[in-house]
């Protein structure tokens, strides 16, 4: 009878529906933003997956949180509440702040948060010595500005203001710039979000109009706008923490790198092995190898004259060998 067959199919579907096992993923990678077009997060994700691939039975799920900061807390809470993830891996200086109430409600949950600093016993955090990296960018900017005889002003365009930016990156950049041009100044502009390229272009154009030679954007998707403005003005752009030479040949002349994939790989590997320490925030700089400047890439070599490259590489090597270090200002709690 048609109706009984229909009932059978329905019952099977229902049974399947109800008995599908909860998906046995153990690591959740939460991206506060979008994965596409965000090298920092792509590297994070890559590192986690590499570590997970080495251990059988570990699966990774990547969840994008969108750009609305006010919703991240709710989303993290939902992830943790589902009980599916043994570890939540994420990256963003604001994440400890957001995860703290969730950690309080679910004390058994473990978080691995890169690019952040927290003593919370549920978190394993790792922060980068942005001051050192920014210093390197500043030094290169100084050398470039000096050779072009532009105004002794460098530009820094940020997505938003936050403590690391105000306390470490901006001063570090200024220090590096002034180490070459003692009378130099840094012009600081804020986009207000991490995706508006149009606004980024507008701010950069304004700087270039004032005879600035080099701009360092740290603004996520808005950085693209800075590049297009530089292209129009015939000026230069430094790319903060990933290989940006290919973005616009001849315009992006220097790229720093934060080896986020190495960092996440190392941390997750330790976590899987059970040797990760929680509540002990790590700070790593150029010496430890997680931060560096991409001076050996052909694009760098061909893009700048030796008169600039040689003194700059000397500075970078000082940091690499640990001869020179800078203290990273840390939060008090």
């Amino acid at each position, binding site marked *: 009878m048609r109706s009984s067959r229909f009932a059978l199919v329905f019952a099977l579907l229902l049974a399947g529906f109800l008995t599908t096992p909860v998906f046995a993923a153990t690591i959740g990678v939460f991206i506060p933003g979008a994965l596409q077009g965000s090298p920092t997060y792509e590297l994070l994700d890559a590192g986690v997956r590499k570590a997970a691939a080495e251990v059988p039975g570990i699966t990774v799920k990547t969840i994008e949180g969108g750009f609305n900061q006010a919703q991240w807390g709710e989303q993290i809470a939902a992830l943790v509440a*589902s009980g599916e993830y043994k570890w939540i891996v994420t990256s963003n200086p604001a994440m400890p702040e957001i995860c703290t109430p969730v950690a309080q409600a679910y004390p058994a949950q473990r978080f691995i948060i890169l690019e952040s600093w927290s003593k919370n016993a549920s978190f394993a955090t790792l922060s980068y010595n942005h001051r050192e990296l920014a210093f390197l960018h500043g030094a290169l900017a100084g050398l470039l500005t000096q050779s072009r005889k532009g105004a002794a002003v460098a530009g820094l365009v940020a997505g938003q203001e936050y403590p*690391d930016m105000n306390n470490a990156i901006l001063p570090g950049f200024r220090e590096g710039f002034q180490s070459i041009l003692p009378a130099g100044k840094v012009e600081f502009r804020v986009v*207000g979000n991490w995706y508006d390229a149009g606004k980024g272009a507008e701010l950069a154009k304004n700087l270039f109009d004032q005879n600035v030679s080099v701009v360092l954007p740290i603004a996520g998707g808005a950085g693209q706008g800075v590049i297009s403005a530089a292209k129009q003005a015939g000026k230069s752009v430094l790319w903060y923490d990933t290989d940006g030479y290919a973005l616009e040949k001849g315009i992006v002349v220097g790229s720093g790198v934060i080896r986020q994939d190495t960092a996440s790989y190392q941390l997750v590997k330790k976590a899987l092995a059970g040797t990760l320490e929680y509540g002990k925030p790590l700070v790593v700089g150029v010496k430890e190898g997680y931060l560096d400047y991409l001076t050996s890439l052909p694009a760098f070599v061909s893009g700048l004259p030796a008169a600039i490259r040689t003194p700059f590489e000397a500075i970078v090597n000082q940091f690499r060998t640990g001869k020179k270090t800078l203290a990273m200002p840390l939060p008090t709690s």
Partner: protein
Amino acid sequence: MNLPRAHANPLIGLSSTLLALAVSLLATVVLLVVFGSHPLSALRSFFVGPFSSPLAWGNTLNQSSLLVLTGLAASVAFGAGAFNLGGEGQVYLGGLAALAAALFLPPVWGALGILAALVSGMVAGAGLGAVSGALKARWQADELITTFLLSASVVPVVDSLITSPLFGAAGSFLITSRKIPQEFWLPGLLAPSNLHWGALLTLPLAVVFGVLVNSTPWGYRLRLLGRNRAFAQYTGLSMASYSLLPLGLSGALHGLAGALGVLGTQHALVQGFSSGWGWNGIAVALIARTNPWAVVPAALLFTFLDQASRMVVLQGQFPFQLSALFQAAILFFITAQIVRRRS
């Protein structure tokens, strides 16, 4: 713009709405099954997810109560023929006003301070709405445009004020104000969800409005205004005050939503916390065909669909833009008049 009007036979109106909802639900289910890597668990996340834990329940209830408020706000305006498209700004400004009250009133005021903060939120929202109303009364400025523009310009202003020394939180990595004193926090319910006592305020408010709009002379006049403005004027209604009133009232309700959001959930003003509340309120009002009685079920339904799609996104099978896609599909089907009107 033709708003969906209540049909003479309420059953046809209702079946038209239900049909639209059923179709949009079907569309989302199809999307889930076709594009999801694990259709059955995606379906389970969708239908069961919003109720699967106290956290989920609490968030669902919280969101629906907020939508009841903004849905009422939109219904009040649209039912009176005033197109309030400025909900977003009115909510946000209401939140700022409540924040200011909470930060600058002495904490010893306690519950009175909470009340003062809520009232400030309402006043701020009402003020913003009333500006458009005044422009309409005096210069026949189309409120469709003025509400939207005013709201769009208020949002960046509030954004910049959040991190200013006046309101800002030092040492936070988020764009947020500092936290309000604990004495002004609305106690939470079903922790760790976003639900709080203030959310329970909205149901009685919906009842009050249901009675006001449907069963009082004042409500009758407001509805007449929405049905045929020329006729309302002809019967002697003062066009000046009835241009101000619907928009002011709508703004006040939006402002209240913003105030509750600040006092109840984050206990601070986080940038973008209310993003979408105004527009979703309009969606709820459309589903409810501007009848306050229908706003509560409409808000619940809309919230369910929204939370369900978010659950699926969180489950990790879809990019985050998909929840917006689901909402758009739902709205699309709702506003299309599917059942042909028999005249």
